[in-house]
C-alpha cells in the first residue's frame, strides 16, 4: 500500500534520515520505534508532505507521491495525526471535526463520519460545543484521532498517541487504534513506548539516528535481544 524507498531528509545541513526504506501493507498496523531523535516523526512528516524530501521515493497505492503537496496527499487518503495532537485550539470540537472532513464534499458521508466518531469517542459528543483548547490532553488526543477519521483515511499516520497521557487513557487509546484497524484502516504508528507499540502492531521497523536498523514481525522484534535491551528496558 505504502512503499518508502531510500528516503533521505535534511534539516539544513543536518541529515535527519539517511536513505531509509519501509513498507506498509493494506490492513496492517506497522510500528516505527526508536529513541528520541531517531527520525520517527521526520519519517511521518515526509510521508504526509509537510517536510521537503531530499532524495528517495514514496509510493502510495501505486502512485508516486514523493513531491506532492500535503493537501493532495490527504486527498489521496493518507491522514496524519500529528505529534502533540495539534487540534485547532480556538475552534469548537465540532468545527475541528468538520475541518477533518475538509476533503469530503458529500454531506451524507460527513454526517455518517460524525456518527462514527461519536461512537468511537462518546466523550467528544458530550463536549462538542466546547473549544478544543479547553479539553484535557486525553480528549485532545481523541479529537485529533476523530478529526483524522472524519477524512475516511485509507492510511492513518499516528505520531506518539501515548504522549503525555495517563496510563489508563493510553490503554484506552490503543484499544481504539486496534479497533479502528480492525474496521479496515491501515495504520502506521510512531511510538516511543516500544512495548506498547509492539503489543498491537503486526510488523515493526526500528530506527536509529536516521538509519533503519531492524525490521520484522512485531513478535520477532519483541523477542530480539537487542530490541529488548535497547527499547524494552531489559
Amino acid at each position, binding site marked *: 500500500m505504502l512503499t518508502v524507498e531510500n528516503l533521505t531528509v535534511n534539516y539544513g545541513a543536518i541529515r535527519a534520515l539517511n536513505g531509509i526504506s519501509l513498507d506498509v501493507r493494506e490492513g496492517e498496523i506497522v510500528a516505527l520505534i526508536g529513541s528520541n531523535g531517531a527520525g520517527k516523526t521526520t519519517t511521518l512528516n515526509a510521508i*504526509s*508532505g*509537510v517536510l521537503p524530501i531530499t532524495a528517495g521515493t514514496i509510493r502510495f497505492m501505486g502512485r508516486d507521491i514523493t513531491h506532492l*503537496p*500535503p*493537501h493532495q496527499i*490527504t*486527498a489521496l487518503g493518507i*491522514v*496524519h495525526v*500529528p505529534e502533540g495532537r*495539534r*487540534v*485547532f*485550539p*480556538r*475552534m469548537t470540537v*465540532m*468545527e475541528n471535526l*468538520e*475541518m*477533518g472532513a*475538509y*476533503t*469530503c*464534499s458529500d*454531506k451524507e458521508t*460527513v454526517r455518517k463520519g460524525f456518527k462514527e466518531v461519536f461512537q468511537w469517542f462518546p466523550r467528544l459528543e458530550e463536549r462538542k*460545543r466546547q473549544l478544543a483548547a479547553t479539553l484535557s490532553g486525553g480528549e485532545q488526543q481523541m479529537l485529533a484521532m476523530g*478529526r483524522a477519521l472524519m*477524512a475516511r483515511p485509507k492510511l492513518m499516520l499516528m505520531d506518539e498517541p501515548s504522549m503525555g497521557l495517563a496510563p489508563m487513557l493510553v490503554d484506552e487509546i490503543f484499544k481504539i487504534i486496534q479497533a479502528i484497524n480492525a474496521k479496515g484502516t491501515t495504520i502506521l504508528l510512531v511510538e516511543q513506548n516500544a512495548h506498547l507499540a509492539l503489543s498491537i502492531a503486526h510488523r515493526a521497523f526500528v530506527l536509529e539516528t536516521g538509519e533503519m536498523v531492524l525490521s520484522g514481525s512485531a513478535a520477532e522484534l519483541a523477542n530480539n535481544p537487542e530490541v529488548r535491551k535497547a527499547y524494552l528496558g531489559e
Partner: protein
Amino acid sequence: MIGEYLENLVNLVDAYYLQIFVNIGIAIIMALGLNLVTGVTGQLSLGHAAFMSIGAFTGAILTIKLGMPFSLNLICSGLMAALCGVVIGFPILRLSGDYLAIATLGFAEILKVILLNLDITNRALGLSVPLPHTPIPLPIYVWLTVLLVLAAMVLIQNSRFGRALRAIREDEIAAETMGVNTTLYKIQAFAIGAFTAGLGGCLYAHFIAYINPSDFGFSKSVDILNMVVLGGLGSIPGSVLGATLLTTAPEFLRFMERYRMMVYGALLVFLMIFRPNGLLGGVSIRKLVCKALGIKPGPRKPWHRISTRKAGG
C-alpha cells in the same frame, strides 16, 4: 428622483458630522478587510494602507482621465488592489509571523515611493479628484458599500472557506494535513482583503477630493490594525466597533486640544491591558442577543447547509 431626495436628505446633515460619518464608513471597510487577513487568517499585515492607496489612485485616475461611471470605477479600483494583492501575496505569504509583517511593510513603503515618482499620480503633489457623477450622494454610496462588505464578510466567515482560514490561523501545518491548500487560501484571503481596501481607497479619494501618496503611509496601516486589534481579532462586530471608536475618539477628545493624541494613546494602552482580546474578542453577539431575548441559543448551522462550494481547492 430618489437621488434628488437623498441628496436633500444628506444636505440636511451638518458637514462636520457628515464627514465623520463617512470617515467611519470608510474605516469600517478598511478594518473589515484587514480583519479577514489578520484577524481570521492570522497573517499579520502592516501594509493594508498600501492597497487603499492603489484603490484611491486607480479610482482617481479613472475619474480624471476616463470619467468612468462611479460604480464601475469602484469595482475596477477594488480589482486593481486585489490584483496587486495576488502579485505581492504570492511570494510573501510563504513567510510567517514577523517576517511577513516586515515584508508587507516593505511593500507598502516601496509602493509609496513609486507613487511619489510617477507622472500619472502627479508625483508628490498628489491628485485633486473631481466630484464623480453618481446617481445617489457619495455618503450613501459609502454606507451601501459598508453594508455589502459587511454582508460578504459574514458570509465568508461562516462558510467552509472561512472555517479553513481560521484553521490556518490556529495551526497552519495541521490545516494543511487536513487537506487545505494553505498557500492558495492565504492568497485568496489577502486578495479579498486588498479588494475591500481598494474599495475603501476609491471612496476615500472621491469623498476627500484630494489624495497624496503620503496619506497612505505606515501610520495609516497601523491605524487600521489598531481598529482590528482593539475590536477583537477575527470579530466582525469588533472591527466595526473598533473602526467607529477610533475614528470618533479624536473628535470626542477635541476638547483636550494638544493633549488629545496623548490621551488617545493612553486609551489604547489601557484597553489592551484590560481587554487583551479586544473589546469584542471571544464575545458571541448571537449568544448575547439570545440572552437578551431570553431564548436558548440553538446550534449553529453546519457548513454544508450554508456553503455552496464544492470540495477541492
